[in-house]
């Protein structure tokens, strides 16, 4: 189709806008400049949309403007209402929308190219390339779409959060991949390829468990970009190609960080090698049993209140349990009181202390915890040994010292926060059962650990009132 702008002009504009987005992203490297960065990216995107509309002579099309308005209005209502605890499912849902949109673009591009080809208006040497590129975009788009919907459903608790495994799951996954590729290669009717890839997305996501979600949604975030970038190759849009590449890379980077932090392999998540639960008696470092009672007596005789009044410096470790109990405000109150009493208070954030990368930081920012009090694991891990008191709130696996010692368990080798090195540890967890990984937490048994079991809202407020 004829465009208004000469291709060279369009490429130059695209190049400038992509550079603008990259500047915006580089401003995301500091919290103080991130808002400006987001605004720059947004402005560049709006300009890109207007330039494309001008270029294809649709600036005066009512259909187009109405479609844009519907999307913008729906999303702005949504953006204003959504809660921070829901952020993982929101990101998952939007990953899915991005994937589906790119898949639909691929379908139209595919059928339009085919039409032109049949009318002998399309260069045959380019036709095959274009057709295959569209198929790839379609596959990735549909996998992202159904995978993301399932992930969002699990995170929103409308689907079971436990991994759902059907008989022959891995075989079915592999078979679906093969069938999808064959169907695309043979250029079977496009709905067959679409259906097969959508099925694979479903089968892949349904077996992912709640705690593996940070990896899954990072991966789907990446795929939503890749689908867009490849759709961009199919329609020949330079800006879409470049931005798709950037989004793909970003998601992949986060996926790698999450895999490392959780000690999981990406292939294991995709093809579903399950987290091996340690046999009840075999690898468990300590048997939780009645004979623990004497050990309890050796525990410190100080009350949590006394520990906190005496402490000079305190580190708070929040986990997803805090978010589940909606205890963020109570934790903020504890933080305020400790600071009021002149103590140095820091938060230690494990990379997977939420349901998506960086989730815990947002939850704490929401209740006005200053972000310069939030420290990443690597920044703070050496400080625990010089810390008077650690307060763990709703976290288990990420503070389990067994990760360093219990060979053969799922968490062995996983980097953890060295809470146990502190003088005293106060644990405000719902119960003392093992965390998601199923490995008993040896921290609970340490002499310097005091357990405050129950709803974190209550235990944390009581703790706040005790000194």
């Amino acid at each position: 189709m004829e465009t208004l702008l000469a291709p060279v002009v369009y490429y130059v504009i695209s190049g400038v806008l992509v550079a603008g987005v990259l500047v915006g992203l580089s401003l995301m490297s500091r919290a103080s400049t991130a808002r400006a960065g987001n605004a720059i990216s947004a402005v560049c995107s709006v300009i890109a949309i207007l330039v494309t509309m001008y270029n294809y002579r649709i600036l005066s099309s009512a259909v187009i403007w109405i479609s844009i308005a519907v999307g913008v209005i729906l999303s702005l209502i949504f953006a204003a209402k959504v809660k921070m605890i829901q952020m993982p499912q929101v990101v998952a849902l939007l990953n899915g929308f991005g994937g589906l949109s790119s898949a639909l673009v691929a379908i139209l591009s595919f059928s339009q190219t085919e039409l032109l080809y049949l009318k002998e208006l399309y260069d045959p040497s380019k036709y095959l390339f274009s057709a295959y590129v569209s198929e790839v975009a379609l596959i990735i788009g549909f996998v992202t779409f159904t995978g993301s919907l399932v992930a969002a459903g699990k995170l929103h608790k409308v689907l079971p959060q436990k991994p759902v495994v059907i008989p022959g799951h891995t075989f079915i996954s592999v078979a679906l991949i093969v069938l999808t590729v064959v169907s695309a290669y043979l250029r079977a009717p496009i709905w067959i390829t679409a259906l097969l890839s959508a099925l694979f997305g479903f089968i892949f996501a349904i077996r992912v468990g709640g705690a593996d979600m940070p990896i899954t949604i990072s991966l789907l975030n990446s795929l939503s970009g890749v689908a867009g970038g490849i759709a961009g190759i199919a329609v020949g849009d330079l800006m879409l190609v470049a931005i798709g590449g950037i989004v793909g890379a970003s998601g992949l980077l986060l996926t790698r960080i999450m895999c490392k932090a959780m000690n999981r392999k990406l292939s294991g998540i995709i093809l579903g090698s399950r987290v091996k639960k340690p046999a009840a008696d075999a690898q468990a470092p300590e048997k939780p049993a009645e004979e623990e009672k004497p050990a309890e007596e050796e525990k410190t005789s100080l009350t949590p209140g006394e520990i906190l009044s005496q402490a000079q410096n305190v580190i708070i470790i929040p986990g997803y349990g805090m978010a589940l109990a909606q205890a963020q405000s109570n934790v903020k109150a504890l933080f305020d009181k400790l600071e009021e009493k002149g103590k140095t208070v820091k938060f230690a954030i494990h990379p997977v202390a939420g349901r998506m990368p960086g989730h815990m930081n947002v939850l704490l920012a929401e209740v006005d915890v200053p972000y310069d009090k939030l420290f990443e694991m690597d920044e703070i891990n050496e400080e625990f040994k010089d810390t008077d008191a650690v307060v763990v709130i709703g976290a288990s696996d990420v503070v389990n010292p067994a990760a360093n010692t219990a060979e053969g368990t799922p968490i062995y080798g996983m980097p953890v926060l060295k809470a146990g090195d502190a003088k005293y540890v106060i644990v405000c967890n719902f119960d003392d059962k093992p965390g998601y990984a199923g490995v008993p937490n040896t921290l609970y048994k340490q002499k310097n650990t005091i357990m405050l079991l129950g709803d974190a809202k209550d235990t944390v407020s009581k703790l706040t009132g005790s000194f």
Partner: protein
Amino acid sequence: MMQYVLIGIFAVSAIVGYLIINNVPPLLHTPLMSGMNALSGITVLGALTVTAVALKHSSPVLSVIVGVVAIVLAMINVAGGFGITARMLKMFKKEGK
């Protein structure tokens, strides 16, 4: 020829993007991801292009409908993604502010 250039651009922008995003601290990873939601919505450019073709060539109504759905979904990502990211970033405050 152009198609191979585009593949090259895809690869280069992925590498440059990776290097830049590597500097984003874990503190901001959630806003980063919702920002990426917004950017993945830039597939609206493709949706606009194919819908424009469908409109101009009086293609079957179905093509236009598919195009419109693609535009709506992509715009939800663009506006929703940037909006949510802005809302989140507003919450990040330093002490004393």
